């Protein structure tokens, strides 16, 4: 019976997928599409060839990281939805170091990565301090900071980082600052190893260290945390900062680890919504850093494979997005339900 209990989250997710697919097909039948053909195209598009698999993996990189931002928040009892803004700033930090500085090869990649992580973390400091000092609710402060980040990043991109002669985007990352493409012709770069390593690190931190234990304890039962002598303020700060680092890395990964742009569009078009997508990924991954890796691949498959639905099964792109949305929502329900139950009890 014990293995059954361990399998329960996976079984729940599988049945959620089936429910999502059924609801999606009802929608398609209603609008006179062919569900089976569409889903076949979706699957083939996502995993049909080596190139497709690589593409799916490339899509998974930023969202597994922004998922960590949200998951860390939930584990500390927070609803931190600031990944979007922190991710923008991470991209800006990476652009500045990767495009403007001239550094030796390996060092340049590391410096640009670090710049993205630090910029993301810095953007999380103020909401974190507002929460700890004044009890400002993180939903309010992070939404506001997302908007500030949005306009601030566009401003920086246009006025300080724009590529001369091409105002629609920033200076590209210099070749010394780029992660190597893994297979010629794909957009998957070595930055995925950095993302995986980061997920592993967070996993180890949460379950393998005393500080991580205390962080989870604060989220699970703040009274017991106080009894145990664990500082809630410290846990909240760490949760915000580490989440900011993850989101910053996500932003940087799209600049120095994702061809063909190697730069940030002035509309933020090549990064926008990656932070919010992380919320869904985190929920599907049960707010677990390793679950997030799998959930991000699934999410990447929907994003990448969805394109095939459009031109192979003739499903309009808006419908593709609606169906993807239905599947994501269905998958998020088990974890969302758990979070709601916990907050009602409190």
């Amino acid at each position, binding site marked *: 019976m*014990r293995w059954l209990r361990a399998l329960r989250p996976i079984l729940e997710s599988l049945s959620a997928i089936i429910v999502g697919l059924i609801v999606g097909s009802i929608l398609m039948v209603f609008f006179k599409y062919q569900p089976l053909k569409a889903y076949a195209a979706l699957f083939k598009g996502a995993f049909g060839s080596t190139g497709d698999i690589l593409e799916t993996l490339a899509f998974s990189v930023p969202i597994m990281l922004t998922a960590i931002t949200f998951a860390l928040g939930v584990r500390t009892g927070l609803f931190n939805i600031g990944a979007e803004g922190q991710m923008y700033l991470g991209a800006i930090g990476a652009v500045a170091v990767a495009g403007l500085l001239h550094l030796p090869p390996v060092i340049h990649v590391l410096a640009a990565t670090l710049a993205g992580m630090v910029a993301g973390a810095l953007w999380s400091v103020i909401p974190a301090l507002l929460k700890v000092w004044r009890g400002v609710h993180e939903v309010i402060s992070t939404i506001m900071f997302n908007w500030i980040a949005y306009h601030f990043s566009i401003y920086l991109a246009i006025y300080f980082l724009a590529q001369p002669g091409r105002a629609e985007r920033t200076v590209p990352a210099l070749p010394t600052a780029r992660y190597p493409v893994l297979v010629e012709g794909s957009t998957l770069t070595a930055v995925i190893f950095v993302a995986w390593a980061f997920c592993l690190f967070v996993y180890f931190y949460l*379950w*393998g*260290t*005393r*500080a991580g*234990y*205390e962080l*989870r*304890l604060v989220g*699970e*039962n703040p*009274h*017991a945390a*106080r*009894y*145990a*002598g*664990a500082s809630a303020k410290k846990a909240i700060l760490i949760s915000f900062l580490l989440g900011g680092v993850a989101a910053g890395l996500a932003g940087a990964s799209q600049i120095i680890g994702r061809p063909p742009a190697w730069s940030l569009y002035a509309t933020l078009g090549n990064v926008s919504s990656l932070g919010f997508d992380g919320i869904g990924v985190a929920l599907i991954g049960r707010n677990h850093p390793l679950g997030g890796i799998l959930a991000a691949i699934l999410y990447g498959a929907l994003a990448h494979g969805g394109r095939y639905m459009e031109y192979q099964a003739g499903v309009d792109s808006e419908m593709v997005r609606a169906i993807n949305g239905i599947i994501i929502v269905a998958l998020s329900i088990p974890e969302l339900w758990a979070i709601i139950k916990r907050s009602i009890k409190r």
Partner: protein
Amino acid sequence: MSPEFSIEMKSIHKVYPDGTVALRGVDFELRSGEIVGLLGENGAGKTTLMKILSGLLPPTSGEIYYNGKPVHFRNPSDALKLGIGMVHQYFALVPPFTALENILLGQEKAGRLSPLDLKGAREKVKALMEETGLSVPLDTPIELLSAGVQQRVEILKVLYRGTDVLILDEPTSYLTPLEVEELFKVMRRLKAQGKAIVFITHKLREVVEISDRIQVLRNGVVTGKLPASEATFDKLAIMMVGKEVIPQAVRSEAEPGEPVLKVKDLYVMSDFGTMAVKGISFEVMAGEIFGIAGVEGNGQSELVQAITGLRRPVKGEIWLKNSNVTAFGPRKLYSLGLSHIPEDKSKFGLAMNFDLAENSILGRQWEPQFAGAFGRLNWDNILKFTDRLIKSFNVVAPGVRTPVKSLSGGNQQRLLVGRELSKEPSLVVAAHPTRGLDIASTVYIRELLIKMRDAGKAVLLVSADLDEILELSDRVAVMYEGEFLGVGDIKEFAREEIGMMMGGVRVRK
């Protein structure tokens, strides 16, 4: 001819879904124009009985008669229709709403979208205030009013619904002496207007002062019914706590050593902003169990929280062995040898969704055996330690990686007690350590506390269960409204004497 009593409850039984028997055949009567005091300690069944009369709980068996006719209440509004209303111990007011809005809440005579007739309602409430002498500022938000005024709002709220039978559950808990006098004036006035009032309390002086008749409950049974004029404190105390002598658990004579815990002139504030602990001083020696008896809510929780680092005292000092630990947090106190068995295990002592292993290091997570260099958790040691706890404290659990919420209450408490007592403490603070547990776990945990005493530890036991105090303590203090009414060797006190002090009557200096 109208019957003698306006309300009669006959042979009421109540068994809660979890199997707890709260009432075992209780009769209760009420005339209009009288105040009946319903007296008893924690868990005697007072509140349960009145929740049944006000329609909040269904009785398991038994009948209720209203003016001689049998009635069945499905919910509180059924009871309200007959004019029976209850003011609960914990206020149910909406803090940002004004007093007037709170009084009208649920009684708005308007459609969902049509405007409230605030003007007409205001006139009616004003008339009611005039008539009863209960005056409150109608336009001030509730959160800005003191506990005493909030209580008046609660009473007005119930009276506004046309109540003839008013039930007040421990109404003086959060009131100052002056506010209590005010409340009594109002109660007398209401009585003169022909209303019947049930006054639930554990306070002897108050019940004698205000009631016409007194009915005493103990363990769900009526142990006394008498006119207040015939009541004496010791008579009531015996009815409330019984007379039988509880044998002390089999054990040797205490051999008290040096004082381990010293509390000097301690003042602690409650969450409600009132002073919960008012200048208490005492010492607990190594090798003794010092018991604090008292009805819950008399400042015991705040006292324990101050001693265990969970609440900052306002004034006074706490010494653990030779250190002044008054401002210390839990972590520092634990390192000085404190073990704390908290009053609410699911709130403070355990994280219910964490597994046994994670809970077995809760509060001990920085001990070198569990966390090594860079704060890395040593899971090998943690799992071995959890196994040891399970074996040596007889915890029945499916496995060390199961969430503790799937354990029975008794096993949860065994794990918690095991974790705390295996620390090699010098001071054990145990608050209600056996509340709600099965008999086997209760006996087991009491034996463990005696073992700790025999091993030379200082044990501070706080319990609302008088039997537990009498069985375990070497010395005892009775706490009432934030003060100790008596401190001394357990042999110096008769049971009814402690009962009187629990009811707020000081027997001797």
